């Protein structure tokens, strides 16, 4: 399990299927914010290649740009400069309707604070992305039910978020992120609000789900133990990639 330094980026990653056509490709990705009159550089000239099916962890101190990078990849933010391409779609050049479709059909978000809709029951929360995707009602109820079963919440369908524990809420959020069969899961400190035991269980669930479905996942985390579960760890500092670490896994064979 000893992490191995890999300065050469992701080329040659054993889990990559598309050697020349990476699933995520960031090229000199830059994001500057204007706070008042001063410009703050959240991310500067970041190059990144992520292969399909890869689990990447983004680590670094606060303000290092990990959330910014995640939001750029998720199509929630626009790059100031450079480009990020996901599954062939250039997000910086994409139109707003293209980004809406991209978020709806290809990306699933998982947040630290769960971000469930408080007035919706568990099953309604899982259904909501499918409602946006205009999935027929009967289909989405069936899929939401089976997704909740797959995250181990078979008995909590009709509970509202405030009637559930943190772990349960995050399981609902995971089920919701998977609702529209995305290719990419973006998780922003998914275990940050959970105790270590619950966090470990949620992480186990996430890892087994992405492995089973061949999903690509990028996860922002502070926790080195969580990061160690990833295929690669990208260390960010002051908006730059400091180093990229490839973890050696005994089970990492396809």
């Amino acid at each position: 399990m000893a992490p191995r330094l890999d300065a050469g980026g992701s080329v040659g990653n054993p889990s990559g299927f598309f050697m020349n056509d990476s699933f995520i490709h960031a090229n000199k990705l830059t994001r500057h914010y204007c706070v008042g009159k001063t410009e703050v550089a959240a991310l500067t000239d970041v190059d990144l290649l992520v292969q399909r099916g890869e689990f990447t962890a983004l680590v670094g101190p606060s303000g290092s740009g990990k959330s910014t990078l995640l939001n750029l990849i998720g199509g929630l933010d626009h790059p100031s400069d450079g480009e990020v391409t996901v599954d062939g779609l250039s997000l910086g050049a994409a139109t707003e309707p293209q980004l809406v479709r991209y978020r709806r059909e290809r990306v699933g978000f998982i947040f630290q604070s769960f971000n469930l809709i408080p007035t919706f029951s568990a099953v309604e929360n899982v259904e909501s992305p499918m409602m946006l995707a205009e999935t027929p009602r009967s289909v989405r109820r069936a899929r939401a039910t089976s997704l909740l079963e797959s995250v181990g919440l078979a008995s909590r369908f009709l509970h509202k978020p405030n009637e559930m524990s943190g772990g349960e809420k995050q399981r609902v959020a995971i089920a919701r992120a998977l609702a529209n069969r995305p290719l990419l899961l973006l998780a922003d400190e998914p275990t940050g609000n959970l105790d270590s035991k619950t966090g470990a269980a949620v992480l186990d669930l996430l890892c087994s789900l992405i492995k089973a479905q061949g999903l690509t996942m990028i996860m922002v985390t502070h926790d080195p133990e969580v990061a160690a579960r990833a295929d690669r760890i990208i260390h960010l500092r002051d908006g730059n990639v400091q180093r990229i670490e490839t973890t050696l896994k005994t089970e990492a064979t396809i």
Partner: protein
Amino acid sequence: MTIPDQVRTAFSNVGRRKLRSALASLGVVVGTLTIVVMVSLAAGVRQQINQQFAAIGLDRLTVTPSGGSRRGGFGPPGGFPFAATAQKKVITEQDVNSWKALPGVTKVIPEVNLPSSVGLELKWNGTNQSVRMGGGEAAGGMLFQEPPESLAGSLELLDSGGIVLSLGAMKAAGISTNDPARIIGQTVETILHTSRGDTQSFSLRVQGVSKDHSPQIQVSVADRIAMKNWWFNATNILEREGYDSVTLRAADVTRANALSVQLRHAGFQVQSLEMFVTVANRIVTAITVMFTLIGSIALLVATIGIANTMVMAIYERTREIGILKAMGASSREIRQMFMLEAGFIGLIGGVFGLLFGWLIGLGLNQAIPIYLRYRELPVHGNFFLVTLTLAVGVIAFATFIGLVAGLLPAQRAARLDPLEALRHE
């Protein structure tokens, strides 16, 4: 998002803030209620007017000489009829006879009015009692009055002469009213007197008794001509002055309108009930528009309440908007969602306003006849009439008001940046 899903979501979102939605829609309720009550009152009044006119008959025309005294009057006070003859297009007996022969004319009733200064008394058993000359056609109806009811004999006066007494006139003259039929066929003396003290008696055969409590008599046209001749000390008053008015009844309303054009062309003044109805309806329409405007102003004020509620809701649900956008909701979907919610508040307000307004109308429809009976006014039917057009129109308008109120807040919600919205606490 499909339209049914949007509607369902908006409806459940309104439902989860019941009190606030109810308060926001209160303004719409008041505005809608005002419109419903006012417009249904106008519709009821319009129906009343039309019914009253139709009861008398829209097939009736009143022809009067042109340039002369007005219909229904008793001549200008102290008027000297000969002076006006030159300018007047008089209605002669020949005119009346030719009208009787016109196709589609079912009835021609000529009228002669006595000057208002004529003193009139009914003599019975040697005592004289002052009575009033009933105007117009004895058997015809008057607006907002019950048609006269016959107690005995016929109220239709014959051309050859005769008199109809009211119950009140009989009582005043001291004629026994126990058996009104007994007076039929008897002769009563009607005495005319001038202010100078000249008197003249006319013997008239009683043809009928009407159930009218005011002391009045109706005298046939032939007798009235005789009275007028005496009054003006003339023998040919009809030839000179013609009839004061002639009521024509046509076979139907269309024929009545055609006749009215024809007679007006011949130089007479013609008034038809159709014209009255048109004018009355125009007035009612004007009042309806005014009342509707008052209600509409209330509804416009209600938009402020709805807009405020929506701004609050959007502020509270900023994070939810961020979540929805992250999950792939478009700005258009967010805008539509909030506009639908505002529209629902308007719709709910409209439905309750309509319901309450309708109930108020129902209550007043029950209460007003009690008052009318107390005042002995012969008006029946409803004064508040909620038509389907009003019901549908007012709900549609209330919904529209809600949508308008939601426009700007929804636009604001749609423009929210998903990242900022997600950071919102």
